[in-house]
């Protein structure tokens, strides 16, 4: 079973502060994704990556940066956090579509509250 871990699991931040959410996968998947989940909006893609060193913008990238320093790690960075970024954030990993591992494997989520 694919394993994706996220840290921290819960975070309280102040408006204007910097927040870094971390994600680690041990399955050697090429693709990694960051989503936020909000009631009424479902899962929305923020950033994704095809491999180490690559990051791509998803549907709602404004206010977020991403970093993929290695195959295993993918971070989401909020340079200046705002209350509108209060949400549950999910990281996922998966492999190339059509392959046996094209399923997305999700982490446990991070609850972020920006005051």
């Amino acid at each position, binding site marked *: 079973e694919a394993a994706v871990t996220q840290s921290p699991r819960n975070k309280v931040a102040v408006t204007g502060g910097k927040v870094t959410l971390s994600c680690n996968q041990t399955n050697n998947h090429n693709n990694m994704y960051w989503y936020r989940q909000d009631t009424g909006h479902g899962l929305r893609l923020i950033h994704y990556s095809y491999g180490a060193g690559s990051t791509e913008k998803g549907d709602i990238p404004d206010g977020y940066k991403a970093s993929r320093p290695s195959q295993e790690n993918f971070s989401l960075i909020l340079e200046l956090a705002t209350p509108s970024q209060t949400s549950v954030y999910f990281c996922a990993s998966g492999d190339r579509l059509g392959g046996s591992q094209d*399923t997305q494997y999700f982490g446990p989520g991070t609850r972020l509250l920006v005051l």
Partner: protein
Amino acid sequence: GDSVTQKEGLVTLTEGLPVMLNCTYQTIYSNAFLFWYVHYLNESPRLLLKSSTDNKRTEHQGFHATLHKSSSSFHLQKSSAQLSDSALYYCALANTGYQNFYFGKGTSLTVIP
């Protein structure tokens, strides 16, 4: 651009009745992959079903869905709802062009006794 529509935001069913959750999608690509993910409370979303083959029924854990490219639909069905089916269900679309996923807004299914 690509998109997924799940018309029902909330569905409440009595145990034993059939389940049908609607999913339609838009894409300019012919090689669409459609997925259903299930998200139980306090767990991570996980794959329930997937398909990229037109008119082929796919089944898992009592649920089934058939991708119909002619109508751009991938509805999720189950013959008899169980209390344990209560969860948030997401339909998702991906294509080999971009390798990213588009999720619908989700349908929250509640099964009552």
